């Protein structure tokens, strides 16, 4: 089996090239059909994310020479996306065999991601594989490669802390801080001040954690109503801010106000009504929406964007410390996969060789017994055993060398030689 990867990622290509090359799910299905028509002997899968577009091809044994070249793939992509094939060829990277396997495994384990350890890539790879299966362009070879890649990613996730450290502001805010304060969110009152993108994303994390009672306060009420419709909350007029803040357990603030919208005096005014209930406040605005002095009030846990960025940086650094262990796992899994693939392939060749030898033995045995005429059945059996021993002794050394090569994940040189020497047909 041979795996081939042709494509580019944020490391090799410019982001604008990636944008032009990107495939939507429908486009992926269309492209997979087109590639299958053009390279019918190859299995194909397309992985398209915002940071990479990679086409994986696999072919076994006799069809390895029918794998596409980089130029052919560039032509196809150029035609599909209406781009210049010449420019595209320069930007595409081609990896074969062990290099392609290692690339796939690193990608799935999120070691090749722009944000190392990000969780989305595993799901994106699964989607790519499912689309290929749906389009009937993924067979036994790609199945084995993707399954092994997912196994490697699972090992990285369970044996290192690479994925446990979150690095985006909203995820750190909710998973690292909000969940350290509150056990559950379905009985908490969440207030979103402003309807910015960061606030919306944070709210999505809170909703995923079970938040149900959501109030959105924005100077522009229709925008708050739109967000409330999408996330299942209630929009309120700006004048209600103090009242809702007095009842809130979690506050996310992302306004573009030039001055703090909640001063210390404002907070003190509602403090009695709060009864010193815990308040988790995320001030994601620049400049800040909450007076920093509010953080000193009892029961208030106030986080600014700078605080969360510092936590993100620490987490990213902690992830980097786990990189060597993760790379080691990927290396082990790559070797294991290549050995398994070689074993699968050599197993089929060995079987064919033995069948061929058995056919020759039977042919020669028939010829000999025909010439000898009527012989004792015991003698006939002894002759057959001798033939078997001869064949086994002749085949044992080359087959053992072949198994050794497979175990070591060798390049398949012996296998090819054996096929040629014994003229084995697929």
């Amino acid at each position, binding site marked *: 089996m041979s795996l081939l990867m042709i494509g580019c990622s944020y490391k090799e290509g410019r982001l604008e090239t990636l944008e032009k090359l990107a495939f939507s799910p429908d486009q992926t299905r269309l492209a997979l059909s087109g590639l299958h028509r053009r390279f019918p002997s190859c299995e194909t899968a397309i992985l398209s994310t915002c940071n990479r577009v990679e086409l994986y091809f696999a072919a076994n044994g006799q069809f390895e020479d029918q794998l596409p070249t980089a130029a052919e793939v560039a032509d196809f992509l150029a035609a599909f996306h209406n781009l210049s094939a010449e420019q595209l060829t320069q930007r595409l990277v081609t990896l074969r065999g062990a290099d392609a396997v290692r690339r796939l495994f690193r990608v799935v384990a999120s070691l090749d991601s722009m944000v190392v350890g990000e969780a989305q890539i595993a799901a994106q790879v699964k989607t790519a594989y499912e689309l290929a299966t749906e389009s009937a362009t993924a067979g036994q070879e790609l199945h084995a490669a993707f399954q092994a890649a997912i196994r490697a990613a699972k090992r990285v996730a369970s*044996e290192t*802390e690479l994925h*446990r*450290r979150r690095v985006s502001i909203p995820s*750190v805010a909710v998973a*690292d*801080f909000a*969940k*350290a*304060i*509150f*056990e*559950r969110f379905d009985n908490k009152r969440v207030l979103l001040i402003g309807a910015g993108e960061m606030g919306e994303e944070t709210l999505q994390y809170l909703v995923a954690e079970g938040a149900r009672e959501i109030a959105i306060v924005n100077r522009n009420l229709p925008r708050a109503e739109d967000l409330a419709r999408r996330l299942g909350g209630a929009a309120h007029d700006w004048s209600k801010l103090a009242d809702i803040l007095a009842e809130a357990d979690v506050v996310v603030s992302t306004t573009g106000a030039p001055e703090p919208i909640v001063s210390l005096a404002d907070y003190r005014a509602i403090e009695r009504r709060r*009864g*010193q*209930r*815990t308040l988790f406040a995320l001030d994601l605005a620049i400049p800040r929406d909450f007076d920093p002095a509010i*953080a000193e009030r*009892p*029961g208030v*846990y106030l*986080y600014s964007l700078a*605080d*969360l960025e*510092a*936590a993100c940086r*620490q*987490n990213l650094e*902690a992830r980097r410390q786990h990189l060597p262990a993760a790379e080691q796992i990927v290396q082990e899994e790559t070797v294991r996969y290549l050995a398994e693939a070689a074993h699968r392939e050599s197993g089929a060749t060995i079987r064919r060789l033995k069948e061929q030898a058995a056919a020759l033995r039977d042919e020669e045995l028939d010829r000999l017994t025909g010439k000898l005429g009527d012989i004792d059945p015991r003698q006939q059996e002894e002759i057959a055993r001798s033939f078997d021993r001869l064949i086994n002794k002749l085949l044992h050394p080359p087959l053992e060398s072949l198994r050794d090569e497979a175990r070591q994940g060798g390049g398949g040189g012996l296998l090819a030689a054996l096929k040629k020497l014994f003229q084995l047909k697929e």
Partner: protein
Amino acid sequence: MTCFAASYLVALLVELTRPLFRLRFRTLFALGMASAGLFAQAVYLYQQIQRDAGTGALLFSWYHWLLLASWLVAAAYVTFAVSRPSTTVGVFFLPLVLALTLGAIPLRGRAPFPADAGYVYWASVHGFLLLAGTVVVTLGFASGLMFWVSSHRLKRHIPPQQGLRLPSLETLQRINRTSVLVSTGLLAAGLLTGVLLNVAKGAFPWSDPVILTSAGLIAWLAAAAVLELFVPAARQGRKVVYLTVATFVFLVVAMGVALLGPTSHAAAENPNIEIRNPKQMRSTNGRNPKPRPPSIGAVSGSVSSIRISDFKFVSDFDIRISDFLRRRPP
């Protein structure tokens, strides 16, 4: 005993290395060691119960009392750690387990508490209630410390994953509140049974320092419970923690007084243990009691002589309670 103390110590040491380096099966190993200690301690306590079967003596010595308390705290730790494997609570629970376990060692030679025949059952109830109250206060203290550390870290924006991952503040606050309310009930019931026992026996040691500190502790807990129930601000955040920590300090003082002070709860070393028979008891609790030794300062080791007769009073009411307490409930 060395066996389970060593198990707890190893579990604690393993937990303490958490911020220093990564160990693949650390949690499993620490839990395994603590569970092994828990099992060994259970076997040891069972043997002690078997040895003292029929005398009801298990809770009647400080040694056993502290060992049982440490076993219960260790059991609470293992249960908590198993139910929340992502948290690291061992560094808070295990020192308390070890303190209770090691604290029992010097008390091994001490005599049992005074236990008059006929009152063994109610004396056991008294001991168990105080034991349960002590364990709940200890657990509340551990969760209070966790709250304080976690709150301190969160106020300073330190992500919880860095070496120490504790339960949420909401959970810790709930444990704190529950511990204040439950321990108030248990300790008050324990003190009440103790008072009734002494009244039934015909003598109540009003000036016993243990009684005084225990009464102080109950008063404090009652005030804390009232605050908890009726003052909303007192239910929140650090205030609950202060209550549980102060309660624990009160408890430690009460135990210190009980162990070291001049009290009928602290028997001398190598005493002549004497369980008085009911006939003697009847004459002691009867309408014409015999004169008693004058003060606890004169205690020579005989359990029966640990009384402060100056404060003894006898009435028909005492006799009725006495009869009631002698009857072991079905």
